[in-house]
């Protein structure tokens, strides 16, 4: 059986905190493992922070819509915003550095999302960015390279 919730927020950090907390409660109520909850939380925070900080050029409030679907073996996150076109799949991975002084401070969020999700799809639909990410449910014992 699938369980689904629609969550909406405006493009500010207070709403982001509320939405992540509501998503967390939804996942807890469906008994997802702490590792799965962490991974979905991380993906939500990274993607939504990017939208809040960079998607809109004006100071007006804009709605961002999120659908969280819990399936038997995976969680699907679908995110829609009407901000400027942004395809996270087109962003190159940050260059690996050996020295802390050479290392760039930005660009980590999308890298973490890519490493956390099983698959990721982006398309532009009627002036909206649509991002669909699949996170495999993790058991309590988990040994892969993903978080």
């Amino acid at each position: 059986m699938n369980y689904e919730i629609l969550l909406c927020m405006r493009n500010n950090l207070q709403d982001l905190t509320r939405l992540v907390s509501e998503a967390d409660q939804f996942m807890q109520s469906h008994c997802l493992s702490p590792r799965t909850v962490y991974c979905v939380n991380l993906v939500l925070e990274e993607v939504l922070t990017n939208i809040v900080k960079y998607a809109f050029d004006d100071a007006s409030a804009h709605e961002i819509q999120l659908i969280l679907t819990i399936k038997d073996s995976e969680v699907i996150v679908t995110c829609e915003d009407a901000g400027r076109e942004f395809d996270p799949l087109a962003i190159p991975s940050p260059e690996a550095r050996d020295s802390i002084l050479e290392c760039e401070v930005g660009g980590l969020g999308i890298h973490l999302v890519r490493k956390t999700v099983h698959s990721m799809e982006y398309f532009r639909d009627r002036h909206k960015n649509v991002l669909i990410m699949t996170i495999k449910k993790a058991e309590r014992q988990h040994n892969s390279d993903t978080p």
Partner: protein
Amino acid sequence: MDVNFSKQGDWTIIAVEGRMDTVSAPEFEKMVQERILQGSNRLIVDFSKLDYISSAGLRSILVAGKNSKAKGGELACCGLQGVVKKVFDVSGFHKLLPIFDSKEDVLNRE
């Protein structure tokens, strides 16, 4: 997020607890920068009670590491576990910062 500062020799130990995210990380970065400006540039961040870290948290650690190094100091990490440790690893931070099991391991290094 709770942040607790303590001193041991010339090391400043920073114990973090809870969530290090987009909202809490900038405040953490500010608090650590104040300590560095006051002359505390040898830092140990103890992650053993941290439940969650995102890229914003990693960024604040990186900035603190850069700032302490620029003042002739260093930043060491300890107590990493579970998914927090995985996030460190997939971000390549284990190659950028010295990582120890416990703060005693850092202090006993000398």
